[in-house]
């Protein structure tokens, strides 16, 4: 939208010039926060497997919102209890899922009116701990954590 000297300028001429200049910033969904999944693997664990094989600690490099947790198992034939915690969580995430033979993507944790979204600050340690009734030695178990945050200035 251009204006010229000498023309009668109506308000929409100027308003639209300003509005259209920023339109691609406003409409591009690339500026939404981006998410990545952090898969935490516990392969070949069975009932009776002991620490440290049943837990993993991750130090986080940025402020993240944890919005989703997925329990995924291949040939993991048992009931799995998963906790996601760090010392700052008021309500740690605790999940139980019954997996089975074949590949099972179990019910997920996601943000609802009763499941809060969790904020993990930069430098905090997330601990994922699992226990299982599985007795199949060759199996996979993945706890995928869905973190998202906006882009940063540093």
């Amino acid at each position, binding site marked *: 939208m251009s204006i010229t000297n000498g023309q009668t300028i109506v308000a929409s001429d100027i308003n639209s010039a300003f509005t259209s200049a920023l339109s691609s910033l406003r409409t591009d969904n690339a500026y*939404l926060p981006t998410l990545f999944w952090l898969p935490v693997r516990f392969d070949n664990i069975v009932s009776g497997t002991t620490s440290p094989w049943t837990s993993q600690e991750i130090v986080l490099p940025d402020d993240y919102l944890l919005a989703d947790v997925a329990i995924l198992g291949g040939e993991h034939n048992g009931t799995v209890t998963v906790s996601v915690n760090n010392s700052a969580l008021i309500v740690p995430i605790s999940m139980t899922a019954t997996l089975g033979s074949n590949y099972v993507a179990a019910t997920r944790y996601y943000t609802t009116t009763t499941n809060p979204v969790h904020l993990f600050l930069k430098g905090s340690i997330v601990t994922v701990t699992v226990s299982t009734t599985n007795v199949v030695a060759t199996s996979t178990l993945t706890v995928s954590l869905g973190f998202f945050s906006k882009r940063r200035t540093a």
Partner: protein
Amino acid sequence: MRIQTQAPIQFATGQLLDPNKVQENQQYMLDAVAAVTEKRYAHSVISMPFYRGITACTQADNQATRSFLFTAPDNVMVERAFLVGALASGAAVLNVYNASTGTTAPTGIANPILTPTTTVDTQVFAQSFIIPAGSTYRFELTGTTFTASKLDLVLHLRTDRFNLSGTDTLTEPTVTPFTEATSLDAVAFNANVTAITSAVSSNTAAARALRCQFVQLGTNFTNASDADLLRMNLPRITNTIARETIYRIDVTFCTAANSTITVTAAVLTEAGAATGLSAAASTAASTEASASDTFPAVDLSSATAGVCQTTASDYRLTVSNGSATAVVKAYVTLWTY
């Protein structure tokens, strides 16, 4: 970062056009562009396990088995590295170097970067270094005699969206200020709007900020292994204020001895249909191979606002071995934006 303190002014026909108000709006736009431009970095965290299933690696394993290759599609800064866990016995160190030279440590650092002990703890390497775009670096556990227990290398990664678009800086727009002392000139007004629009376009073109996901997806498997052990679902995002699109896939595998086999990693729909995103790595009388693929992009964003996505809408990540010769381990890196 500049703070936006006001919304743009809406002008109304019939009012006097005040140069100060026009200038306020221009400044608002400059602030908005600057605020977005300065948000250029994305951070992610990955974990590399130095065990296969619960089989720990030892000094007797070949180099490919004792290490992980990491290829950067863009300049990737490793901000910190952690070794979480312990050795079961012996002594070892963790080195990182350019895989193409085999000995060159990243610029500015000296190996070893980490030294695990036989006590379960977390070792921290706090110096940052860059893995240049297109380079492959090797993270290798090595020692005269050692057996690793559960030992994970955790990397903090940072990418810069400007790098991926081929530039390190974006020019901030310059505009002619309007004041009480200057008449409102249409030519200057148009030039100012054009300058701001151009800056916005450059910013939009550099919109991708890559994040990284890493998973060791298969251990000790052949063409007869159960496919359920060689897959991992990629759930869609539940929260619709975020987004995730797979931009690139990298797969690396290794064998215990020289072999000539192919391992394929692919992103499929939950129903098993191809998405076109797959990478096939082949050894040629060697113990290690990598491959990558970048298109088509696979969008994992939520399909329905505010609704948890069912597993039927997942994608699945798979690896497969075309040979009866066992693959010691295969690992996949996904780059998303």
